Structures are given as C-alpha cells and as structure tokens.
C-alpha cells in the first residue's frame, strides 16, 4: 500500500486532509466538554456524547487509519468484529431488558427469624 502513496499531489492532499481532521478533533473535544456542562437529562447527555465520540472516532478511523482508502477485506474484518461485539453485548443486556418487562423468576426464600424482644429500652 505504501508504494501507492508518495505520488506528489495526491499524497499531499491526503496529509493535508489529516491535518484538517486534527483541527476538527481538537474542536470536537472542546465541544464534548462544553456539551457535558449543559447538564442535559441523562439519556440525552449520553446520546449526545456518544454521537460526538462516534464522529471523532470515525474521523480517526477514516483519515488517520486510512480506512477511507483501504481495501474491502479490512472492512469485512472490522464489520464482522463490530457485528460480533453487538451480539455479545445484547446477550447480557437482553436479560436486563427481560427483567424490566417483568418476566422475573421469583425464588422462595426462608422466613427471617423473629427478633428477640428488647426489655426496658428508652423512648
């Protein structure tokens, strides 16, 4: 792949694009912190923070890691990895989801022993 680079103008464009991405990442990091201090409701705050992080991560992956010009095989490797990650994440999360819709299995437990009576305790 390296032999394809270094051909003057094209490669310079790639490096300049990466420098632009660097500036964008610095700005987005500042935005991440500013947005966090807006004290939005939890779900909105999480969603917004993740969207910004995904944009930043996407820029790093596309331009710094050259994914934007990489061959399909690498995408397939990453695609399979991400798919498996979500499957593995959903397995424990689905049990949590089931709990929330009320499909709990209740296990009967032994009655607690009666507490001893306290004699003459002050009011």
């Amino acid at each position, binding site marked *: *792949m*390296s*032999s394809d*680079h*270094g051909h003057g103008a094209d*490669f310079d464009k790639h*490096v300049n694009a*990466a*420098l632009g991405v*660097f500036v964008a*990442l*610095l700005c987005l*990091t500042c935005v*991440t*912190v500013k947005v*966090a201090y807006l004290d939005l409701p*939890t779900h909105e*705050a*999480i969603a917004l*923070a*993740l969207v*910004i*992080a995904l944009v*930043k*991560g996407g820029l*790093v*992956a596309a331009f*710094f*890691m050259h994914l934007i010009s990489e*061959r399909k*095989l*690498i995408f397939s*490797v*990453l695609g*399979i*990895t*991400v798919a*498996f*990650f979500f499957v*593995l*994440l959903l397995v*424990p*999360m689905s049990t*949590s989801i089931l709990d929330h819709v009320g499909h709990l299995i209740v296990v009967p437990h032994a009655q607690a022993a009666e507490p001893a009576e306290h004699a003459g305790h002050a009011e």
Partner: protein
Amino acid sequence: MEIPYTVEPRPDTGLTNGKIGIWLFLASEVMLFGGLFAAYIMLRVGATEWPQGRTILNVKLAFTNTLILISSSITVLLAWASLVRRDLGKFKLYMLITILCGFGFLTIKYFEYTHKFELGLFPRKSTFLAIYFTLTGLHGLHVIGGMSVNAYLLGPGSKLYETNPEWFTNRVENAGLFWHLVDLVWIFLFPVLYLL
C-alpha cells in the same frame, strides 16, 4: 528465508501481510475494550446509583490528556508521511514528539492515580472506581506498549531504512495504526468515564 509480502502486496488479498496482521490484531483489541465497555454498561444500568464522573475525577487533566493523544496521533501520521517522502530526519523528529506525548499522557495519569490513592479512592471502594481503574489502567498499558514499539522504530529499528526503506515505512504505518487505536479508545473513554 525472507519474510514474504512485506513490501509487495499478496496477490490474493491485495495487501501486505503486515497490514492484514495489524488489522486482525486491532480487531481483537476492539473485542477486548468492547467487552470492558459492555461491562461498564451492564454495571451502570444495573446500579441503583452511579456517580457523575466529574464529581470524582479531574476533567481538566483528562481533557489535557485527550488533546495530547490527538496531537500524538497526527505526529505519528506525519512520521509515516515523512518516510513516504524519504525524509528520515523529519520521521525521527515526529516519532520523538509522538513518544514524548505518550510520556506526557502517562505522567498526567500518574498524578491522577496518586491523587485518587491519597484520598483513599481505590478500585475496591466502589463499582465506579473499579471499572474506572480497570479501563484506564488497561488503556495505560496499551500506551506503554505502543510507546515501546515506537521507541524501537525510532532507535535500533530505523536501521532497516538503510537497506529496505519501503519495508521500514510499512512497519511504521502498522505501528501507527496501533497508536491510532489507542487514541480511538481514549476518545470514547474520556466522555464515558469523566463527563457522563
């Protein structure tokens, strides 16, 4: 016997062996950190209460660390670009800056951790602290690993440039990919642990 396909791509994949190898390794790293992020999600969703990261952790230091790692990502890319342009001097300068950024990151992390310990905030004290130290500790180990590889390439490893500059350039590119992943993980760790 020569190591095959270090410079010319394989005819079946169209990529060098090193490129495929590093991406497969990065895929395994995605599973490693992905698993821990999933653990964080499960712990937080299942907890009755969860502290807001910034009430316990130092956002200013972590923000500085984020800027340091992003800067080190561009310098490692510029180091590779210098090699593509056959400028060994610039490569050494940018790679040195990358390694120094790594030292800066770890120094700040050292001060963060020691301050936590002075306040008695150890991993065993709460679930939040346990997952915080696990995630950032593992990430820190990856920073050390990446710095070691970069230091080798800056030092004794750069001898390869004299005999086979193309192969050396590919090695630096692949090491850079690992460093970018370290940066990528921190890009997610910072808001998740410190801000949310």
